[in-house]
């Protein structure tokens, strides 16, 4: 068995709602091996995104532990978790979340500038090249198509050579043609930079491309 890059133990997330205490995910246990892409599938409201947020250290569970890259991130404060994310974690979002007033290059440079990388621009240009947008580096987010925006978002996610890459419905906002291209790009990137892809999707075809598929329903793993 390869090294585990992510280990989730007994994760439960509860939130207060007008209707009372709501359990979003319940007693989740899973582990991810390094370099082995996995996917989380399930219908809307099944808790996929919440689980991804907890696994990536963007949110904390009510109970349970998450060990990411050897660190128990559920025991760390926000700043410590941010340190780990900045160094070894990449993200791709359904809504792209590019800064509209920044150029494609500036958007990709963002994670490196936060970590104070002196060669941020060179690395960002390289990443844009890897997603096929080297010539559009000066374009602003509003001047790009949906597929191009997601490519920029992928370039931003991989620019710091993350050991693990979380992607939340990366094709959810794209047409069929763009979806296919983005899917191919994600899996080729996974191999190219030797990262581990954790994919959240409700697209079963996309999910099937991963080595392992976890299915969620009503907050529980099936």
């Amino acid at each position, binding site marked *: 068995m390869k090294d585990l890059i992510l280990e989730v133990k007994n994760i439960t997330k509860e939130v207060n709602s007008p209707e009372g205490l709501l359990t979003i995910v319940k007693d989740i246990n899973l582990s991810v091996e390094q370099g082995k892409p996995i996917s989380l599938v399930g219908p809307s409201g099944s808790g996929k995104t919440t689980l991804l947020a907890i696994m990536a250290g963007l949110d904390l569970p009510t109970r349970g532990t998450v060990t990411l890259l050897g660190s128990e991130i559920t025991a760390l404060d*926000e700043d410590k978790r941010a340190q780990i994310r900045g160094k070894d974690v990449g993200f791709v979002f359904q809504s792209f979340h590019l800064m509209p007033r920044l150029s494609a290059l500036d958007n990709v440079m963002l994670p490196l*500038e936060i970590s104070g990388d002196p060669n941020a621009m060179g690395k960002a240009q390289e990443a844009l090249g890897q997603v096929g947008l080297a010539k559009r580096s000066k374009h602003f987010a509003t001047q790009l198509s949906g597929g191009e925006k997601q490519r920029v978002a992928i370039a931003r996610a991989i620019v710091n050579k993350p050991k693990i890459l979380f992607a939340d419905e990366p094709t959810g906002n794209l047409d069929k043609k763009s979806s296919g291209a983005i899917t191919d790009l994600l899996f080729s990137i996974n191999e190219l930079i030797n990262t581990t892809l954790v994919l959240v999707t409700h697209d079963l075809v996309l999910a099937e491309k991963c080595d392992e598929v976890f299915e969620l329903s009503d907050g529980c793993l099936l």
Partner: protein
Amino acid sequence: MIRGFIYGLKKFWSEVFNGDLLILSFSIVLAVTSISSVGFLGDRLQASMQLQASSILGADLVLRSATEIDSEYLNIAASKDLRSAETITFLSMVIANGDNLLTSIKATTGSYPLRGELIITNFSGQRIQHSGSPPSGHIWIESKVSESLELTQSDELTIGKKTFKVDGIIEDYPDRNSSFVGFYPIAIANIEDVEAMGVIQTGSRVVYRNLFIGSNQNLNQFVDALGEIPASLRVQNADDAGDNLGEAIGNSTTFFNLASLFTIIIAVIAAMMAVRRYADRNLLHTSLMKVFGASKSFILGHQIMQLSLIVIFATVIGLMCGYALQFLLVETLQGILSADLPPPSYKPVILGFVTATFVVFGTASPYLKILGETQPIRILRNDFSIKLSNNLIIYSVAFFTMFSFLGILFQDIQLIAYIAITLILVTMALYLLGRLLIYILSFVTFSNGIGWKLGLKNIVQRGNESILQIIIFGLSLLFLIVLAETRTDLVDSWGETLDEDTPNYFLFNIQEYDLEPIDEYFKNQASIAPTFTPLIRGRLLSAKRPNSEETNFENLMEREANLTWQTSLPSSNKVVDGQWWDEDSAVSEVSVDKEIAVSMNLEIGDELNFSAGGKTFTASVTSFREIEWQSFSPNFFFILSPTLGKDLPNSYITSLKVGENKKIMSNFIERFPTITSVDLEAVINQAKGSIASASLAVQYIFLLTLVAGVLALIASIYSNRDQRTKETAIMHAIGASRLTIFKSAASEFFILGLLSASAAIIFATILSSVIFYQFLDLIYSPNLFILAISFFVAISFIFLAGIISIKGTIYASPMITLRDS
């Protein structure tokens, strides 16, 4: 945090030109421009008005006495690096060519005047250079003296035992109102000749004045060094000068402070709105940075650096604009201001920086906390809205910090406290009004598709957002309306003091038998009915407090006293303490000018002993009066009750407004040669000049605050423009016509404007009455014209600016709007 600073520094220029930082910077630039131009202009105008007041005094500070002043004071002044001059003024007959004229003789030292200008010409009208006093044995005279006594260049005249050679004509001199002799024509002689004239004897009416100029610090040190001074000695400074001018300066200073204060508060409101929009739009960026590994300190470092750079650049630009603006204003005012304006101090520069820092960080601090603590999970939830309800404590701290800062800045705790309390109460009242509006509107049944109903529905749906806009609109309008009212009433009150009917002639030495012919003359010649006031030449002998053995002979400022008696209180007088007597009162009473009473340490009930018309009598002080000297009506320090005054021998005095026709007065002088007429034109013009410049300054400074107010309203309208734009695009996309969207926005802005303006009008009348009564000493009656204009302009402005703010979206393709957002 250092990495955050560096990141903020690196990104500043690209971000500042890319959107929201630009909006925030612009609002700070405008705020600093307003504040600093108010500061620069106010600073210079106040200095200028002080100079003008000093010019009326002939100095910055004067020691004045009816007896000779100890020369020790001149030595003290010299030790404090003050420049000094001396004058002695008295009335004497000037004799020449077998004729004589009662003239005010002013004997001066060479350094006179220290402020203002003494202009001397020869008889051909050419200006003569001089050193402040004529050489010993020479004299300068006013043209009235030369005309009356038929004197020309180098003629001789005699005053007492001394003969003088006439050297020149006095065209202008500064300290016209410096003594009781201000209404007589004047002659200026060398102070060394006074003894040789031999006209000053024990009991003569003389005013001795020591004049001083120097830095404020040195003047203050001098006053401190004077210590206990004899009661007969009075210290006068520029604020006391000419009585009326001092009040104009005091009130305009209050207005400048009020305008600066309101500008800062309005700028804070504008900045709050701009910062809110900035923070709203930065939430995505910050959340992303958190996702990609930014720590709280990195985020704070980034924000603090950017805000600090805004403070620096916006303040520098604002200061430059402020200086340029005040320079333009000063150029405009140059024709009116008689004195050259002194350069502004550095105070407004410091004020600009400190204010910008407080405004930016005071308003941004709640958002800094929110941004620093932003959870990265927002990215996955697409949740980029800011809720400030949990940060009331931070807002409260920011509020108290801001008002403590204002308290230190304006050094008027009472004013700041009033404004702070008003702000809290009005905010609460506006909040309740907003809640009430939403509550009422929520009962209205809305059917979709009708534009104006959609607008009302939007108000309800936006809830807190609508209430916030009502509060912001209401507060901005409140301060603007209060300032507009204050400005108008202040300028009007000054204008009224010197209006068209202000008398321009005084007539003295009118005897009982002259009354009827004079009355007839003016009725026939100029349709004027003069009012004659009795004038009793008297002398104040002593003051005594009942139940006290001690009689005061020393503490009497003017032993020579012009008295009058009156049945009713003169219109230009106001009783401020005690009571005016009944018409048929049989008690011996006297009413005293408040200032004289203070200088003589008098109390109601004290007994004053006078001599007049060969009689001595005692009068009980029953009231103190405040006198409007600027009314140019005959006014008296002491007014006797009819029981005392009506049997004393008296002449009469009157003041008249005679039109442009100079012949009326020249014919009058010919027909009534025994009556002294005094032309007040020069004195009135001097006062008019000062009041005109003060009024204009107030108008201009009000305009600056108005610009700040307009900015705050625009910032408020634009603060939720993104949300409106998105909603408009969605409505457009689902089939709403442009007209429907227009009607919806129009009705929403109209209702918000109507409610804010109505509330602002009500609260403005309350705040104005407090300010008028407490700080300007004016009686407040709501200015219905200003209130009505403000009401309609405010509603129209909010309505139009609101429509303009979403105009682009109404006409743009909804797809472009939705894609960009």
